[in-house]
């Protein structure tokens, strides 16, 4: 096994490193990474951001929203927690979790922490979750990654994953909410997050002198490029939401307007607006203009303005109308 330090707290850069060592520069030995990120909400590959996270809250609190390449539900993680990744040659396409989780369980045991599996490939202490795990398979490699909730802001975690109940129907993968706890609370002798990392890496790598690989300056440029192309774009984070239908209502001074939309691959594919206080002709014009528009507030405002429909409802601005359409 070989340890690679990414020296980055950027979630997109770390995802790019995983991808790089799985798809572009696979290494014969198992690769092990142990990393953390600035506050991030990480959604599963086939999840819908609208059903999983409070995006406005995330923006307001500088929480990065990212979509990973593996399955499962949404995780919140910050600098108080860690993530670990194993990358290794695939075994005939079959799914294995235990062999990746056992070394983590054993390492926690060295710290006198008794962690156990549940049926959903999470690790628990006394029935409360401390680690969520997922995988993706790419070519002949398996990427297994998991979180370790060492000392996370659990209040922020709960708040950022509390979603307003919009009427959405979709076939997206839904998160399973579980009770969580911090590893730090269960330690006999308190240590900080850096010390926790050092001990975990040493236990998993089987000693203090382990093999490492240093990411070169040239490779750092490649990783940034992968992050820019595969992980950072709006089209990936929000544009890859599985197809969904959404209904939203908003009360304005003159009455209530209801918007019903179909969204596929981040684009509005159908739109209907209902309300009894605006002209039918202008509504038809807006409905037609919105088809093909990205499901993003700024783009919807642009469409409204381009068609001169800012005042189609008395005293309602383009921004307010866009907030009805894009929740």
């Amino acid at each position, binding site marked *: 096994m070989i340890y690679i330090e990414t020296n980055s707290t950027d979630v997109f850069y770390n995802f790019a490193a995983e991808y790089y060592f799985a798809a572009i520069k696979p290494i014969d030995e198992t690769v092990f990474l142990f990393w953390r990120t600035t506050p991030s909400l990480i959604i599963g590959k086939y999840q819908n951001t609208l059903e999983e996270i409070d995006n406005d809250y995330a923006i307001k609190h500088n929480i990065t929203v990212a979509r990973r390449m593996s399955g499962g539900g949404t995780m919140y993680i910050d600098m108080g927690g860690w993530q670990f990744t194993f990358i290794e040659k695939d075994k005939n396409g079959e799914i294995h979790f235990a062999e990746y989780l056992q070394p983590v369980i054993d390492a926690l045991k060295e710290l006198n922490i008794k962690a156990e599996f549940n049926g959903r490939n999470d690790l628990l202490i006394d029935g409360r979750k401390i680690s969520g795990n997922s995988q993706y398979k790419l070519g002949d490699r398996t990427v297994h990654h998991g979180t370790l909730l060492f000392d996370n802001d659990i209040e922020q975690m709960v708040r950022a994953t509390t979603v307003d109940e919009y009427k959405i129907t979709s*076939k997206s993968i839904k998160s399973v909410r579980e009770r969580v706890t911090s590893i730090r609370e269960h330690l006999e002798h308190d240590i900080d997050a850096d010390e926790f990392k050092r001990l975990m890496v040493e236990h998993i790598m089987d000693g203090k002198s382990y093999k490492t690989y240093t990411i070169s300056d040239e490779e750092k440029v490649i990783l940034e490029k992968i992050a820019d192309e595969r992980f950072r774009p709006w089209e990936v984070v929000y544009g890859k939401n599985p197809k969904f239908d959404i209904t939203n209502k908003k009360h304005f001074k003159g009455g209530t307007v209801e918007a019903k939309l179909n969204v596929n691959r981040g684009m509005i594919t159908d739109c209907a607006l209902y309300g009894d206080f605006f002209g039918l002709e202008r509504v038809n014009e807006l409905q037609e203009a919105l088809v093909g528009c990205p499901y993003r507030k700024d783009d919807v405002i642009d469409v409204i303005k381009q068609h001169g429909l800012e005042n189609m409802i008395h005293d309602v601005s383009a921004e307010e109308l866009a907030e009805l359409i894009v929740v």
Partner: protein
Amino acid sequence: MKKKIALPKLSDEMKSAVLCAWLKQEGEEYKKGEPIYEIETEKVISQVEAEEDGIMVHQLVEEGDEVSVGAELAEVE
């Protein structure tokens, strides 16, 4: 000759999976070893590769559908 492809069992515990994405569309040709669809099961994303050269004739399930192990997914030739 037309035949059906079915959902494989990737682990002892696997009973079903969500077919998340078709990577070959109806009418599209593919070579042995090329990924033809992507599934999610037990929080794992796997691309399933073609066992032989072929053409995707008719997809029997939609993206987002949950299917049981062994269920027919598509007609190929």
